[in-house]
């Protein structure tokens, strides 16, 4: 599956970035808010939907549930990391072209 031509949404980009280290749902919301300087606030409903979609795509996986903890933790997969790197390259191209032409 080649997704190199498809831009990720901002929320998915930040969720994948956040999941470079394992986190549970609420941790992802806090981390993405922190990474974006409080700008990106992902709603619980959006996050829930995004996590199940990303799992279906195999970009993230659920970690083994610890016996006495009911909270599920998630982590990025190798495929997810590849998608993230492709998106990074795409964003870099956008920024570089902007810089060159706007002379900023």
């Amino acid at each position, binding site marked *: 599956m080649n997704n190199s031509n498809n831009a990720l*949404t*901002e929320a998915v980009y930040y969720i994948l970035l956040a999941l470079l280290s394992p986190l*549970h*749902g*609420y941790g992802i*919301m806090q981390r993405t808010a922190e990474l974006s300087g409080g*700008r*990106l*606030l*992902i*709603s*619980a*409903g*959006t996050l*829930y*939907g995004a996590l*199940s*979609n990303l799992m279906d795509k195999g970009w993230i996986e659920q970690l083994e549930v610890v016996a006495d903890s*009911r*909270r599920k933790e998630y982590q990025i997969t190798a495929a997810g990391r590849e998608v993230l790197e492709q998106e990074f390259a795409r964003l870099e191209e956008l920024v570089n072209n902007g810089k060159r032409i706007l002379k900023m």
Partner: protein
Amino acid sequence: MGTTKKVWNFFTIAQWEEEEQWLNDMARNGWHLVRINCLLRYVFEKGTPGEYIYKLDLPDNLEHGMDEQAYCSFLAECGIDVVCKQKQWLYLRKKATDGPFAEKDDLFAKLQMTNKAYSYAIRTLSMLLRCFAVMIAIFGIALCVISHPYINDLFEGVIMGIGIGAIIAITLIWVPLINSLRKKMNSLIAEIGIKR
């Protein structure tokens, strides 16, 4: 248990933003929604003004095979209470000090919500149509089986009544509702084409 008050109010499937606004206005004045009775009587409990913020949610459990219990415990983990459930809508609240539910004017989230409300409206309409069809069929069969002039006239009247009722309900209520949701979706899609 503190002071409560009950307020009757009605919002259509297309008016969840108005309903949310109203619940948040009530909360700002210290009236926090605790449940909704049948007949759409909203029950509020007196509390600290502005302690909670409210949000309506319509989880599409059908499409994603979403397990409602798992979703509710996920919400609890995020500091969100499910206050009550009315039809398929969830009424959520959280402490205002924990920050807003999401960023305001998230076009994509608005589009998703409108789309969910739209499919919900269509599902409800098709269910309604099936109910009418079954009722008409039952009276129709009864009409063929029973041959008593008085009962036959009565059943014919009932069939006519159900049929006319269905046509009025669909043209006056459902068609405008579904149209307004469709228009809202189209304008959001047009806007998302420009900015996200």
